[in-house]
């Protein structure tokens, strides 16, 4: 597929209409794929394989501002792209979207955590991953090491592609709200302890925020000395924990559940569960809603219909206890 993509890109770039293409190149480790803007002359560095899990749509804010570019988007990335177009963060007409086929992306951490050490290279053969290590070659099934976000795959359709290259596959398994339901079933004290435990690992590296396509503010309130809250997050560890809660509320209704927050977190905090809880609530209160399904949507929290629940729903659902 990579070859087909590169050939097509060569054609498109040759037209001179585009300043470049947002894609991936190979990084330092066998699993690492580095996002970048590629021009005609460095196209041969471009790589597309099972490790290109990161969502590239957010790079378009900076790179498609006053020029036209080509973007390689997986089916799930399209939702973020649409959402950012809705919010006027990306000019749709400045981007030529090539939908790239995706059959689920691999989580390098999962391979390592599976006990495979000294990895020097990886190759794919159908559903099998052949892993070269210092201690010989090992084989594992792709399905066992997919990224968490692929397990709640939103489907194989590209919701915004100008053209599609390659086949996709829906890799979702089971109920994506399983963990949220588990948290819902906890007592408030248990849930508080769970999140205090998770969030205490946070080192405030801001990777979640920087990776999040919904966190696209020109100036984040946490970076704005005039907001009156930027120092609060640093006041003590409890206030710092609230950073994530506030962030979840800021992206409520706009989060496409792309899973970048958790994928990017170096501390392995399951941040996406905060967002997914809100998504579940929105769906239950206002009917199923998928942010980024199409450009120009009004999300339920900033929209109003006569069928909307009255505020008393909070009490009915056992809130306020």
């Amino acid at each position, binding site marked *: 597929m990579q070859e087909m993509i590169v050939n097509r890109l060569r054609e498109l770039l040759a037209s001179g209409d585009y300043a470049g293409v947002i894609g991936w190149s190979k990084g330092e480790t066998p699993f690492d794929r580095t996002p970048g803007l590629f021009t005609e002359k460095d196209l041969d560095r471009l790589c597309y394989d099972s490790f290109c899990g990161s969502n590239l749509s957010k790079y378009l804010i900076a790179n498609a501002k006053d020029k036209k570019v080509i973007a390689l988007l997986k089916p799930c990335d399209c939702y973020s792209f649409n959402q950012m177009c809705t919010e006027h963060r990306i000019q749709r007409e400045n981007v030529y979207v090539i939908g790239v086929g995706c059959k689920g992306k691999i989580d390098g951490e999962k391979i390592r955590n599976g006990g495979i050490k000294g990895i020097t290279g990886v190759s794919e053969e159908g559903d099998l991953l052949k892993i070269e290590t210092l201690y010989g070659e090992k084989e594992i099934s792709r399905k066992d090491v997919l990224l968490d976000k692929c397990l709640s795959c939103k489907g194989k359709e590209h919701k915004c592609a100008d053209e599609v290259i390659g086949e996709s596959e829906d890799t979702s398994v089971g109920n994506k709200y399983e963990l949220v339901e588990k948290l819902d079933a906890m007592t408030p004290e248990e849930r508080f302890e769970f999140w205090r435990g998770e969030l205490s690992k946070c080192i405030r590296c801001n990777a979640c925020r920087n990776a999040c396509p919904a966190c696209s*503010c*020109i*100036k984040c*309130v946490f970076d704005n000395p005039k907001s009156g*809250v930027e120092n609060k997050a640093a006041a003590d560890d409890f206030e710092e924990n609230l950073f994530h809660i506030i962030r979840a509320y800021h992206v409520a209704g706009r989060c496409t559940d792309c899973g970048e927050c958790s994928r990017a977190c170096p501390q392995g905090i399951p941040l996406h569960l905060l967002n997914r809880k809100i998504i579940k609530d929105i769906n239950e209160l206002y009917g199923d809603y998928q942010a980024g399904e199409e450009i120009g949507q009004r999300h339920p929290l900033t929209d109003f219909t*006569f069928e909307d629940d009255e505020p008393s729903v909070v009490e009915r659902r056992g809130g306020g206890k």
Partner: protein
Amino acid sequence: MQKIGVFVCWCGSNIAATVDVKAVAEALKDEAGVVFSTDYQYMCSENGQAMIRQAIKDYGLTGIVVCSCSPRMHEATFRKTAVSAGLNPYMVEIANIREQCSWIHKDMAEGTEKAIVLARAAVAKLHRNAPLTAGTSPVTKRALVIGGGIAGIQTALDVADAGFEVDIVEKSPTIGGRMAQLDKTFPTLDCSACILTPKMVEAAQHEKINIISYAELESLSGFVGNFTATIRKKARYIDEDKCSGCGVCTEKCPSRKGLDDFNMRLNKRGAVYIPFAQAIPNVAVIDADQCIHFRTGKCGLCQKNCSAGAIDFEQKDQLIERQYGAIVVATGFKPIDASQFNEYAYNDSPDVVTSLEFERIMNAAGPTKGQLVRPSDLEHPHEIVFIQCVGSRCSEDAEKGKPYCSKICCMYTAKHAMLVREKYPDVNVHVFYIDARTPGKNFDEFYRRAVEQYGVDYIKGMVGKVSVEGKKLHVQGSDLLNGEQVHINADMVVLATAIEPDPTARSLGTMLTASMDTNDFFTEAHPKLRPVESPTAGVFLSGVAQGPKDIPETVAQAGAAAAKVIGLLAKNELTCNACVAHANEAVCNGCSQCERVCPYGAITYEDREIRTPEFRGVRRIATVNEAVCQGCGACTVTCPSGAMDLKGFTNRQIMSEVDAICR
């Protein structure tokens, strides 16, 4: 640094009984910026205000904090006081130590502590206050009345007589409402139609009144003085300008399956019909669900027979957009669904009817031409049982029914009983009641006449069960005064069903952002002092939409609402709210979220050149139309980057208050 004066009010004993006002004034002296702090018995009195003015001059105060009642009460008073002493009115902060403190605390120490905290928060906020200036907005001199019953008609007439244009939007094909369905009215027993129809005609002929029938409010934007309404005029498939109301079409229509809503669905009518003889507008309407032409594409008899050529099967719903300065809600009521009360066999026997159904049976224009007959076999009844409080005065936790008293049922039941006895002395009439409520002019005399002169059998007690036994209805009830069970074999049972707000009220309330109580009655701006105004500025209340009431009360309230509307429309311009939103262009993302939550349509976007240390270039930025913004703050809480802020209630002011409280 501000120079702040703190003024703690006793409000007689309202505050001073639970809050140590001297301790509050003393504690506030230590707050940063506070240069003067005192207490007084009634700050709102002339002496209290003079004290504030004097302190402003003596100490060169730049702002004042008044610790008193809710700002809804006296904020305006103290702002005027501040202005008269040369301060900007927005340099006044109220710490509500009455409603939010003294009235809800019993313990002096607790109350005092909380009052001090609330005052500190107000001081903290005041430090970040800035002088604000209010603009003005023009008033559209036209009123919209929603609902064309007696309430709406009366309000419209009174407003129109004052010289202002009024549009009445009525959802059914004719105005008249519930009153048009009534036979006689208590306590005078005059014919309802005879006193209503002249008013209907007057409204129709009034040059300032425009009746938009068979129409509903589709959407509304704007604010007091400047509402924009979109009204959906439903297709009636008749050209209103051509139809003469001759009624030939209604006679020719071969479809006879539609139920006559005006007669409480007791008889059938054609698919094309005029609701009743005195309908206004006197124009037919086609019920597309029943019409053979709409169902099969054939027929068209009405069209062939209409000499005016008024039948128009192609007619579509029409959207009318108009501007209004004031809106009157007069949506009225409907009787509750009696089918949920099957203990009274309402679903089992057609001879169990509701009062409004009975009203139509007794009416000369009704389904039986005014003959009192049983709906089942059209035979003359000899025993009639009336049951009061069906669905009214139910306990809060009851599965069905309403907690409130519907107010009119005691009187109309006495009326029904009296009318039956008057016309048919051979009929025995029994009334089961909890207690007869007759607090109105000539009401008790009326009720006593029913008992004493007309020999109506009033039984204090409720009915447990009505069962159908052959042609009879077996009524089982209790007589509490005699302490015994009563069994009556009745021919008819009449249920005095509770009334509830019209089902359209809830969605209308949401559209108008006018608050409602749990029973869907519109709430008043103040239950005693502002009974005909909604808390939403520019929205007024008329008739049962606000709560159960009889015709004289409705007419009185309708006039009161009209007076308020006239007071508003007589103004050429209104002072705008100075506390409006504005976007900080340095951090605005232009994401459009604020625009979507703005109920007033005050936010638009423009491409603006931005020069900040971090960014130079053109960017999409939100801009607020300050004349339209009402300062609700929806945009400020929606904005993810905190770019949107509300003057007078900035994020920093609110954070300062929170910090002061948490200190």
